């Protein structure tokens, strides 16, 4: 099972892509750990996660059906 992670702003820049396909993980906490291991610079960046376009503030369980995104601080307008 794989899952898609959308990356934005500086996080997309660090990964060199806006969309990553990674082996499925059980929750957003594990996802963060996996990402930080793969891209150590991400651990130094402030961001929040969104699951199915809703921001989450504590770890939530994931399935491959969820769309997960990592969002640096917004700076629109």
């Amino acid at each position, binding site marked *: 099972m794989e899952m898609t992670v959308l990356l*934005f702003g500086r996080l997309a820049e660090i990964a060199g892509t806006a969309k990553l396909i990674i082996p499925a993980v059980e929750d957003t906490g594990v996802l963060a750990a996996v990402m930080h291991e793969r891209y150590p610079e991400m651990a130094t960046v402030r961001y929040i996660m969104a699951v199915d*376009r809703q921001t989450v503030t504590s770890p939530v369980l994931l399935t491959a059906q969820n769309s997960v995104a990592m969002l640096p601080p*917004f700076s629109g307008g």
Partner: protein
Amino acid sequence: MREGKSKNIFVSGAIAPAFIADSIEKHTVKTGIGGHSIFLGQVRADEKDGHRVSAIEYTAYEDMANEKMEVIREAIFEKYPLTCMHVYHSLGIVKTGELCLFVFTSAPHRKAAIDACEEVVERLKAELPVWGREVLDNETHQWKVNR
């Protein structure tokens, strides 16, 4: 909020003054309106570490931003007696001096239009997943931080 049901607030590149005029013009037939409030965001030629911002390149998590905007829209219409409300945000490159945001509220009485417009601007800056990458005149860049 059902997926795919939200209006799309994003436009490619800068927002043209003529587009704003067209939007205003369309409200002539809504004769219950007494006041319009408009906010326009313009890209500022800030100085960063001795270099000048020449443009901002905007990206967004479009689906999420449009859904969030729909939530904001519903809250605003519940809070203020508005006739209508329109929001447009640029994606891609917007040069300094050009417009990147257009918020437009209309109401029978001015107070509702003015208060709603301000609240929409504050909320969208805080809540919409949009990012501005400031392009500097030495070809480097840095990520915009909202204050």
